[in-house]
């Protein structure tokens, strides 16, 4: 729902990078989007296409990679990926944050980011 406003912030940051490095053309932008965010990839792509028009990013490829949900268990010290469970009663694969080792409740450490990971661009030699 807020993909357009988030992508507007992404574009601002991309334009800053472009100014910093004097991009002559951009081939690819790689975004890492946490699986716990509410950012739909298709809408991010659409927003990118619209917002990059007329800029040096126009026509470049937007690649979106998932960032996993990481959890920490204070009971046994486990730190790693949270689980997803395909429960028959649930409408979709749902996240489950119980510790895979000791089954105690855990804290979410990450998985809620939207990171500009890489830009592949042409610059003056």
């Amino acid at each position, binding site marked *: 729902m807020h993909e357009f406003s988030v992508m507007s*912030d992404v574009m601002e940051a991309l334009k800053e990078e472009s100014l910093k490095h004097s991009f002559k053309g951009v081939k690819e932008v790689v975004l890492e989007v946490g699986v716990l965010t*509410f950012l739909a990839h298709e809408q991010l792509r659409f927003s990118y296409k619209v917002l990059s028009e007329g800029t040096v990013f126009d026509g470049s490829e937007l690649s979106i990679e998932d960032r996993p949900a990481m959890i920490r268990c204070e009971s046994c010290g486990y730190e790693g990926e949270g689980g997803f469970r395909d429960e028959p009663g649930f409408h979709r694969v749902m996240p*489950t944050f119980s510790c895979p080792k000791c089954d105690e409740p855990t804290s979410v450490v990450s998985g809620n980011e939207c*990171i500009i990971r890489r830009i592949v661009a042409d*610059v003056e*030699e």
Partner: protein
Amino acid sequence: MHKTVDIDVGKDILGRNRELARKNHTFLVEKGIRSFDFVGSIGSGKTLLIEGIIELLKEKGLRAGVIAGDVAGEEDYMRFREHGVPVVNVNTGKECHLDAHLVEHALDEMNLDDLDVLFVENVGNLVCPGDFPLGTDVRAVVVSVTEGDDMIKKHPVIFALSDVIVINKIDLAEAMEVDPKVLQNDAHALGTKAVVVQTDAKHGKGITELMDVLQI
């Protein structure tokens, strides 16, 4: 001549909101104010729950303030004002959630010196607020039985990211043919530390229990 470069940027766009949220949190902690973000569907009973808590806090000699978030209108703002507490109305216009930046501005507008507790009522929405922590001590998500027994199944992430899950309007459970236990079990199935409380805000039931969970 041009050459192709591959630049590692590593900038988290949602991180800016989280930084502001941390700033809000530090500010509120320094002021000695306990703070709560109430999220939930439109009509889940967030406003009435906060109103109920405000009145019970008065009996304890504690003073609350409210940041009332809505897309438009002053309805909730006017209701909170009736309780004689400081209120800032935040209309997002188009956005589907409050963010830490809007809360920071609202805090600027509020006289916080006499406050013990701050409530932030988020825009009614079970999706977008999930990406925007505000910097409160606790996020409570409210779900009412009138929404059906499958809201946690439909929106698992926002429930998983909340500290407290309030199942409201349990007085209507029978009429709605909804078993609150289904919601209760779904909440536990998420495997987080969230505490689940059942309330009937209309008749003031479960509010004291909720306040115990919120530690106020």
